Structure formats: structure tokens, C-alpha cells
């Protein structure tokens, strides 16, 4: 029987690093004919028509925009990565293998899922900085098959004792990038107005983690020391986001003609290389008005065009603060360019001897907030390495370029990565799981047995109250062990764990409404009816009797603004206010214990009709009393 494999990441037709990698490996695995494949696509809804047009079963796992809008920011982020719908997929497809390919925070709380590690679970994630993100470390003992895209992360995790973390690089379709014959390159350069200029290229999304100021400084130094090189810097990026490149050039006294960029026409898709001359210009090719912009995520060049752009360059330089894989470096190597890459994070892989690239020196700085180590690439070293490459003979460059290409094919090609993945999947054991997904409920009533030592006591609380295993190397375990050693009573630790469990189970939010209410404390009734037209209109029909019943009270209606029309004319209302999710907490609104609450009475008529429709009874139920 074929192994059932779920692969969960960006949609395979999305133009993102994750999307391209997923497309490559799914197509590879499909061609083996060995697996029943199921794709889960972040960013698409469950039955999105696009999911029907791939060779394998596919479902979107992101809720609709309306559903997302009803969530708080944290839940919205989690659901964007398919936190809930992945459970539905597991139940429906009953996989042997689940492979999640995303940033590590996409898998937040996955270890709480009842199916986690009951089916073979693999996380294949990008980590970009040191020290390794605490979440990535915290999850290490909970992820049996843990793969990272760059070897520096594997090294760091292994140093912490997590030997099972391995490197599996993101796959590349190596056919799209190659060195064009010299004659063709010459023609191409000439077409774009480049003759004997020394072209230094950088392909990147204009984000602050790309070290543009450092590169400009290094370029400036190189150009002033080597005027004969007629050096040009080709920045294939969007000038309308991130770094203000124009201002940086002015600041450093770099002439406008010395920095080239890529323009693309929205209408005919042709591209042009030229100095920066603003955005929304007219297309010289198709004549479309205001259709030409610097390349960007909405309208970029095709892979074929990008290959041409690499072929315009004499050297590729990629200074950055940190990154997960930095695909343009590999693309540049495939076109047999000599590459200069910051020797940090995933860059370590690309500037080793065997990779056929040169390292750029850097200094450490710390990112505020996260405290992550980030690299500031040394402009002087950029200058000296550019000089070094400029001084190389064509034969030397050619030999190095060929080595670079070979290294990328050996380490990143779909065939190599696909084969490795195939082997990982084939070596996974058979699954014995019933796929009945339920949400984890923590046990706030659990009491541990007597006679446990402190280590066993902590493990027992994790396993039986929080319902998850704990790694004795984890900061959580070490912290509590230290607290017990310092004299904390076991009962106090037990109470703490029970409170966590209660909080987890309640998941309560406290609303803040005071500013919206009149000065009528003690005389307020709220009716919370979030939507929609019919329901609000029907509630409208009840207000006359409600007011008769509670003459001294003011009636507040909470509904979405688009339904105000359906109730606002009723003179029995005091105020119509916009509904917010935080209103779905009866105790906060009516009060409990020491909390006074803002309303004397809060009615949630839609709880039994919309939230949990339990009034329908197939249209058969009867009342023994008249409601008319």
C-alpha cells in the first residue's frame, strides 16, 4: 500500500521560496509513483478552485477573510498557517506522514495536537540567526523529524544536544539558471547598454536585513580605487520599499549612472536595465502608460528573464544580516558567477571552499528585542573582495564558477533533495492511530502520587496536567528544578500548574467597554446580536415587550455596524453599539466575585441560533405557551 503523505506549506503555485520548494518536491514525489500525496496550502481556503488544478489532492487551510477578521491577532496568525484546518485534513486523509514546511512559529502549539507524533511528523523549517530562536529549541524534543534549511542551525542545535536535528536544504529547479554562451552574453549586455563595465550584482527583496548601505559603501571604495573598472552596481530590487537607496547613494556621493536596476512593464512583461529614474514610467516597448516599475513582488521578472539578468553580471555580491537560505545566491552560482557572501547564518554554506564562493567578513550586532546575533558586513572587505575578483583571470573565474554550479546541483537540486526526502519518508515506521482529533484539555484536577523525587515530580506535572512530555534540557524544566531546590513547596508548584490548566481551559478575555456607556450604571441591559439582517430585525420585534418588562432599564444593542439600520428606529433602544468579540464573555459584562460588571443583564439571543444552533429540532418542537 502507498504511504499517505501530507505536505503542508505555501501553495505549490505561490511565487515564494516555500511555494517553489513545495512545488519541486511534490512533483518529484509524484513522479516516483510511490506515495499518495496530499497538499495543504496556507493562504488558500479549503475548497479554493486552485486546489483542484494540481495533480494530487489539495486543500487550502486558511479560513475565509471574514472568519479571520473575527479573530484576535494571535489566533489570526495561527489560523493563517492552518492551525485548525490541519486537524480536519489529518482526520480526512489519515496520513502516515505529515511534513510541515514553514517558519518555526507556524507550528506553535502543534505538539498539543492529539495526532502529533502519533503519525510520523516532520518539520522542515528555516532558522536564520544565532542564538537559535527559543521556540525552535523548545520544540526540538517534541519534533521527532526535525530538519533545517541551513547547516549553521543544525550545528547550533547539535551543540545543545539535539542530535536528531539535520540539514535538508530547500530544493531548487536547477534547469532554469545557467551560464549563457559568451557570445550571447555579450549581445545581451550590449542590448542593455553594458559593454566593458565591471558589473556587480545583487538580487534581493528590499528588506532591511539586506545590507544595502554596506554594499554601497564597499562599491564606492572599490570604484574610487579602480576607476578603470568602470564599475556598475546592478541592484535587482524594488526601490519603492525598504531601504531608500536613492538617498543612500546621494549620502555616499555615488552617481546616479553608477547604479543600475531592473524595470518591468506590468503590461507586456518586458524588462529593462537602467539607472533609477522613478516609478510608473511609460513602456518604451508596448507604449503602455505608467506601466513600468522596478521589479517587485506583485510584478517581477520570469525565471528566464532573471537568468538573463544574472548573465549580465561579472560578480555576485550578497551582504545580509541573516537568512534562511537566500535562494539568489544559489541562482547566481548556477549561472557560474563568483559569489561574495556574508559568512554568517545560511551564508556560511555558500562561501565555503567546496561551494566555490568567497566569504565576506562581518561584525556582530544584536537585534533589539530578540537579542539575536546579526551580521553587519564589513564594507572594507566588500571592497577588497571585489578587487580580488576584478583581478582574477577569466580562467580562474570560470573554474570557480563551474565549481559553484556543481556544488549547487549536488546540494540543492530537486533530484538530490527529493531523493533525500524520499529516503526519510521510506524509513518512517508504520502508523497505528485512529485519527479521531479532539482538542487537548489540560487536567486541572490532577494530583501527583507520593514518593516522587523533584525531577520525577516536574515530569509528572507536565505529563498529567499540561498533557505533554518535557525535555530535561529545556529551560522550563531547569527553572522549576531550580525553584524546588531553592525551597519552593511542591504544593505551590502544583497550584501553579493547575492555574495554567484552568487558564488554558477557560481562554477568557476581559472586555473594555466603559467609554461607550452612558452614566446609567445599575440600569443597563445589553443584547448582543452580532449579525445578521434577519436576526437583528427579529430582535427588533421584541424590544417593545422587553422595555415593558424592564421600564427603568436602558437597552443597549451590540451588533455589527452594517446591521444598525435594522434596529435603530425602535424607540425602545438606548444605544446601538458596534459588536466586538470581547463582548462574548458573560461574567465580565454581568460581573462575578469582586467584579461588578457593566450591565445588570446581558442577553445573547444568538448563542443558541448562530454560535451553537440548537433550537432547530428539525422544525418539530412546540411551545406549551403562547409567545404572541
Amino acid at each position, binding site marked *: 500500500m502507498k504511504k499517505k503523505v501530507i505536505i503542508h506549506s505555501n501553495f505549490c503555485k505561490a511565487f515564494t521560496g516555500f511555494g517553489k520548494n513545495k512545488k519541486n518536491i511534490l512533483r518529484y514525489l509524484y513522479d516516483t509513483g510511490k506515495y499518495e500525496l496530499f497538499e495543504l496550502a496556507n493562504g488558500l481556503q479549503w475548497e479554493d478552485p486552485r486546489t483542484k488544478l494540481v495533480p494530487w489532492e489539495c486543500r487550502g487551510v486558511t479560513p475565509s477573510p471574514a472568519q479571520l477578521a473575527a479573530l484576535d491577532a494571535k489566533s489570526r496568525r495561527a489560523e493563517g498557517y492552518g492551525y485548525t484546518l490541519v486537524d480536519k485534513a489529518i482526520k480526512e486523509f489519515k496520513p502516515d506522514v505529515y511534513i510541515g514546511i514553514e517558519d518555526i512559529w507556524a507550528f506553535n502549539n502543534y505538539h498539543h495536537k492529539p495526532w502529533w507524533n502519533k503519525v510520523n511528523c516532520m518539520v522542515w523549517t528555516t532558522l536564520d540567526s544565532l542564538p537559535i530562536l527559543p521556540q525552535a529549541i523548545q520544540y526540538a524534543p517534541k519534533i521527532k523529524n526535525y530538519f533545517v534549511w541551513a547547516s549553521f542551525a543544525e550545528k547550533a542545535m547539535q551543540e545543545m544536544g539535539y542530535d536528531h536535528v539535520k540539514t535538508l536544504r530547500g530544493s531548487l529547479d536547477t534547469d532554469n539558471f545557467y551560464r549563457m554562451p559568451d557570445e550571447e552574453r555579450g549581445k545581451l549586455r550590449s542590448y542593455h547598454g553594458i559593454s566593458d563595465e565591471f558589473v556587480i550584482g545583487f538580487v534581493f527583496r528590499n528588506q532591511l536585513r539586506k545590507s544595502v548601505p554596506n554594499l554601497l559603501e564597499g562599491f564606492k571604495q572599490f570604484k574610487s580605487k579602480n576607476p578603470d573598472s568602470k564599475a556598475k552596481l546592478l541592484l535587482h530590487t524594488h526601490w519603492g520599499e525598504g531601504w531608500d537607496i536613492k538617498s543612500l547613494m546621494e549620502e555616499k556621493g555615488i552617481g546616479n549612472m553608477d547604479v543600475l536596476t531592473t524595470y518591468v512593464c506590468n503590461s507586456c512583461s518586458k524588462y529593462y536595465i537602467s539607472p533609477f529614474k522613478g516609478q510608473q514610467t511609460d513602456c518604451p516597448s508596448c507604449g503602455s502608460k505608467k506601466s513600468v516599475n522596478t521589479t517587485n513582488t506583485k510584478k517581477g521578472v520570469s525565471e528566464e528573464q532573471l537568468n538573463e539578468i544574472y548573465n549580465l553580471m561579472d560578480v555576485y555580491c550578497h551582504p545580509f544580516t541573516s537568512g534562511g537560505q537566500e535562494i539568489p545566491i544559489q541562482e547566481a552560482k548556477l549561472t557560474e558567477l563568483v559569489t561574495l557572501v556574508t559568512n554568517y547564518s545560511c551564508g556560511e554554506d555558500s562561501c565555503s571552499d567546496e561551494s566555490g564562493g568567497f566569504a565576506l567578513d562581518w561584525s556582530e550586532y544584536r537585534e533589539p528585542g530578540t537579542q539575536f546575533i546579526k551580521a553587519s558586513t564589513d564594507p572594507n572587505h566588500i571592497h577588497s573582495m571585489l578587487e580580488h575578483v576584478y583581478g582574477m583571470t577569466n580562467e580562474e573565474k570560470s573554474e570557480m564558477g563551474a565549481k559553484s554550479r556543481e556544488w549547487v546541483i549536488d546540494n540543492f537540486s530537486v533530484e538530490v533533495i527529493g531523493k533525500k526526502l524520499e529516503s526519510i519518508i521510506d524509513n518512517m515506521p508504520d502508523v497505528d492511530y485512529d485519527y479521531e482529533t479532539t482538542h487537548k484539555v489540560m487536567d486541572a484536577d490532577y494530583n501527583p502520587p507520593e514518593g516522587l523525587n523533584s525531577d520525577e515530580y516536574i515530569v509528572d506535572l507536565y505529563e498529567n496536567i499540561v498533557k505533554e512530555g518535557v525535555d530535561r534540557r529545556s529551560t522550563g524544566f531547569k527553572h522549576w528544578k531550580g525553584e524546588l531546590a531553592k525551597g519552593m513547596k511542591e504544593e505551590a508548584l502544583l497550584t501553579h500548574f493547575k492555574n495554567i490548566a484552568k487558564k488554558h481551559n477557560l481562554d477568557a478575555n476581559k472586555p473594555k467597554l466603559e467609554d461607550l456607556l452612558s452614566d446609567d450604571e445599575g440600569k443597563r441591559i445589553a443584547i448582543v446580536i452580532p449579525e445578521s439582517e434577519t436576526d437583528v430585525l*427579529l430582535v*427588533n420585534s421584541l424590544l417593545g415587550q422587553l422595555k415593558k418588562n424592564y421600564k427603568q432599564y436602558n437597552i443597549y444593542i451590540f451588533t455589527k455596524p452594517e446591521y444598525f439600520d*435594522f434596529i435603530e*428606529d425602535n424607540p425602545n433602544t438606548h444605544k446601538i453599539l458596534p459588536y466586538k468579540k470581547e463582548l462574548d464573555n458573560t461574567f465580565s459584562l454581568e460581573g462575578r466575585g469582586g467584579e461588578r460588571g457593566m450591565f445588570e443583564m446581558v442577553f445573547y439571543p444568538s448563542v443558541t*441560533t448562530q454560535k451553537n444552533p440548537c*433550537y432547530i429540532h428539525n422544525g418539530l418542537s*412546540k411551545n406549551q405557551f403562547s409567545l*404572541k
Partner: protein
Amino acid sequence: MSHLVEEYAKNLGVKIGKPIVNQHFFPIEFNNYIVISGDSSTASKTYKSYTIVLGFLSSFLEKRDIKVVQLGGDKPLRGVNKHVSCSFKNTAYLVSKSMLYIGPDNYLAQYASSIGVKTVSIFGNSYANVTKPFWSNRQDSICLEPDWDSRPCYSNHDPKDNINKIKPEEVANSILKLLGHEKKVDVETFHIGKHYNQPIIEVVPTEIITGLPKEVYLRADYGFEEEAFMYYCENHKVTVISEGLIQLSVLKSIKHNVKMLMFALDAETDKIPKKYFDVLASWKIKIILLSEKESDLGVLRNRYFDVDVHPRYKGVERMELPDSCKFSTNKYILEADKKYFSYAHYKKGLDNDNNVLDTPEYWDELDHFYIYEQKENSEKSS
């Protein structure tokens, strides 16, 4: 019964009154009119056969000078006299002056009911008992439900599309009844295809036909003459369906008018070079490949990963129908001075023929057909 408003009344512990809404005047030039809800925001409550209903009623309404006003919806339905999109309070005014409301079980039905306007309500995602117009007397309100073969879906999307199982003649007869007319529409509906309302004109490019709409489908797979083909491509926005690949050199001169190309192939067909698709993309021509064999679909989708690949034939099962059944469609095939209502008719040379044909080609286009049987003494034929 367990009506929605009763649930709300129980929750609030009160008896049910009536909603209070200040109607806002909206100018309307008709004295006698019925209103029809055109809202299509909830798929499971969207009835797609109003056009057929209005077709049944047109002579009756005309004779009595009763107009049809559509409230809401993106586009006017065929057969309505006025399409109005306005606020709820304007709509409330229009409903209050109308003779009858027709539509799903929505707020307009409830509002009409609360002010004594007659209602024909069409249910698709819940039982009528639960959300029927609450305040209406039995003689002023008709609720139409599908024959439930499972529980209602109670959601916005109904995979069974139950609402559209309600036959248009039932809706038409309910309207006639509430307007006090005894005669009935005597048509029996057997099938309404899900694309029936979608107008499609297919032209076989063997001769030149003038006066066609701007957009047409060119069936080069049914017949081909270069001169006619080029005429259509130069004078119309076209979607071309062909048996095989059309050379780029041919497409180059007509690329501005070609919206989409569709052609058939199988797993043995020579691989189409990527360059071909790139050039079409640069010309903004969408391409769809049609797999001749169902079994090749996966292979072709993987081979042409970035292109949409669909099965060419759907293999729709035949229906058992009485011999006297007729059909209508909004999808025509035109060739020279002939008009065919299906590919099956085209293949047999049966122009202007609306008899049902029992051939695989006929059933394959079932999504585009309305199939009915005309009884005698009807109000009006379809």
C-alpha cells in the same frame, strides 16, 4: 414549531411584537408591482430559475399590467421591469407598496410579513418551520421547500444546492395563487443545468456570420476554414477551441483578440515546449489543455504544471425522460445560417431543434440545458 423569533423571545423572556422600521421614500413609477429579491450573497439561498419563472408569468403579468421590481443583486434578471439597489429603509418602503414578495427566507420576507404583504418564500438551507415569514396568515404566505432527502445544510454553501431543486413551475403557481389567479402553469421541469443561465455563443469558423456579439467561442475543432477563422479573430474577442496546437506564427497577428486557447491532447502527444506557453503568457492569452482521457489527467497536470488541464469529456450519465420532453439553452452553436442547441444536434445536422437527443454528446452538455415537458392548457409555454 421552533421559529427563530420564538427562540429569541424565549431568550429575552418576552412576547413577540413587530419590528419598528422607519421606511424611507423611494420613487417608483408603477402602481401595481411585485418585488423579487435578487440578493445572491448567500449561495445556499440563491434561486437560479427566476428567469424561467418570469417567463412562465409574462403574459399573465402583462395582461394585468403588473410589473416586476428586483431588489438588490448584481445584475438585473431577465424579465424584470426595474432593478433597484438601495438601503434597507428604502427597500422597506418599496416592499410596503408591493402586491407580493418573492425570495428566499431573508429579512425582506420577515419585514413583508410584519406589514401584511403577501410572501412566496423559497427555502434552501433550512426548514420553513424555522424561518418562515412569522407574522403572515396562512392564506397570505406560501413557503416552498425542496423535497428534503437529507437534513438541510444550515450554512451559506449547500453542496446539494437544494434550493435549486424547487421547480420553477411551483414558484410560478404560488405567485399566481397569491395574486388570486386560479389557472396554473402547466409545465413539468425535469432538469435545470447549473450553467443554464450563462449565455455562450459558439461559432464554427467555416463561413462568415456578421452581427454577432463581441465575444464568441470559436469551435475550430468542429470545422475550420482559414478565411472565416481569421475573420472572427480579427473582428471579435475570441476563445478558440481546437483539436491541436495553433502555431505562434498564426496567433501573432490576432493575439490582441484571442482571450483564451483550449486544445485537446493526451499523454502520448509530443511535449509542448515551455517557450510556447511563455509566449502566450506574454501575449496575455490564457491557455487550457483538455485531456482526451481521464486516465491521463494526473500525468498531464504534472507535465504542464503551470497550465490548467481539464478533462475534455465529463462523461455525464444519461437521464431517463419522457419522449415528449423539450429543452432550452443559452448556449448555441452557429454555423453559416444554422443555429444548433447542442453539439449533439450539430453533429446530426438538426438545426433549430429543441428535442432531447439520447447521445453521449448531448448528456455531456447537460449543465447548459433546461429540460421540460409541456402539458396542455398551460398559462404560457417556456
